[in-house]
């Protein structure tokens, strides 16, 4: 009797682990289409579009990167713009950050726009639209760094765009930075 119970319980655990694994990785592995922006955001708001990875999201301006409770709220809506850096349409360096992954039950394409950011390569374009006016940035570099490595961000005078998300996927261990120049 006990052996039968162990047999069936073992089977349940094996099947359960396979199903849970599928549940966890399905949102990451399966291709998803980008959620289109609302007309209001397109006309009067600020948004980002990365055609190479089919990512489109609203940019929430002036988000405090120090305050986790605040930027997590902004990240639920889309991409956060770091307060104190140049805003879209201004000269200087724009710093944007967004989720790469979330728990499966919270993960949607809207709040993980940088899910495939690691696929961006040299020459890919990033479009920033602010109140109907679009600026194009071209990727020229990428780095994977530890969270406290901010030294190379010293040069902030260029008209540059920096995209940041966490890597490896499903962790917050390191940071992936994508550097793009305005053209």
């Amino acid at each position, binding site marked *: 009797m006990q052996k039968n119970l162990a047999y069936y319980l073992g089977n349940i655990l094996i099947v359960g682990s396979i199903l*849970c694994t599928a549940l966890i*990785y399905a949102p990451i592995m399966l291709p998803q289409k980008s959620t289109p922006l609302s007309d209001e955001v397109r006309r009067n708001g600020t948004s980002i579009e990365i055609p190479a990875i089919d990512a489109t999201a609203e940019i929430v301006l002036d988000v405090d990167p120090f305050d986790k409770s605040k930027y997590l709220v902004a990240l639920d809506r889309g991409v956060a713009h770091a307060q104190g850096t140049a805003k879209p349409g201004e000269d200087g360096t724009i710093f944007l950050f967004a989720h790469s992954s979330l728990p499966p039950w919270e993960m949607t394409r809207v709040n993980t726009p940088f899910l495939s950011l690691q696929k961006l390569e040299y020459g890919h374009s990033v479009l920033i639209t602010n109140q109907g006016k679009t600026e194009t940035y071209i990727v020229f570099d990428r780095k994977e760094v530890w969270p406290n490595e*901010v030294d190379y961000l010293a040069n902030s005078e260029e008209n540059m765009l920096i995209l940041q998300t966490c890597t490896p996927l499903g962790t917050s261990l390191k940071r992936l930075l994508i550097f793009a120049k305005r053209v």
Partner: protein
Amino acid sequence: MRELLKITTLTILSTCFFFSWNSNAQAETLEITGNGESAISSIEQNNHSGQTVVSSNEVNINNNIQIQSNTGSTTITTGNSSSTTNVENSANTNSINDPNCCIVGASVNVSENGSNTMNSVSIGTKKGMSVESNNTAKVSTSITNTSQTGANTANNNTGITSITTGNIQVTTQVKNNDVNGNTTRTSLTNSEAFNINVSGNGAGSETRVMIDKHNNMVVYSTNIAEISNIIEQLSNTGNNIANNNTGNVIIRTGDISVTTLLENVGINSTIADVTSCCPNISTTPNNPPDTDPGRGGGTIIPSSSSTSSGGMILGATTLAYALGEVLPATGANTTLWATVFNVFMLLMGLYLRNRSGRSPAILTIEITF
């Protein structure tokens, strides 16, 4: 522990003046018409307008901020300390716009007079403006920021003694923008237009139209700005004492990061624009020169000091300043932990099947403890 000790944003727009004045110059029509033969007509008009604007501003701003943070004196493990201070000062901004730049001048019509008439029109305008601005601003900012996570004592303990002090992050920003700024806009080239019509007069008639215009504008600006910025940062994560302990002693001291940003922009700026002042023409520069003392000059006494004990001064670049020491976390570790849990669940399932003795040969795994 990250504690925001104090955020102080002090914006003082102490004095803001806006002046405008009206001239008595108005558009008029001067006519000499319908006179008979050999008539002699003469019109003489003189307009005098004068404006004097005197503004004297004096402002004293004193910012004295003292911040003290201490997260531990005797505790073994102390938390991080983080403080941010922002001070913005602005004072004495004068803007004077002449509303009479685009006025229409007199209209002169000499017509339909008989032969041999003598017609004379004389118009004289004098426009004088005097603008005098005396601004004195004394801005004093004193910030003393003391942060300490160190100075811990652990004496006379047995076993392992460990002291770990937290990190200190101090950010201070002082901006003195637009102190003593004067802007005067008028037009000396004068867009005043005269419409003169001499027609339909008889033979031998003589018409003289004389227009005499005098414009005189004087702008006196005396700006004195005394700006004193004193920023003192005192941070300590060390100075820990562990004496007379019988076991091992481990002391780990936290890092100190001090960022100071000081800006003095738009101090004593005087702009006198005499070329255009119509409302739809704006020549205001976006970034006025830092210093333009005008008559009398200005006095600028900027001074600042920044000290820290055992800390490092970071390059105060805008981006690093905005992001701080740690890049924001945008990933969830849930996936990692869920994967570990699933692997554990799979191994447990395989183990139970193996224990039951009914597992197929390919899945039989010998696990002994």
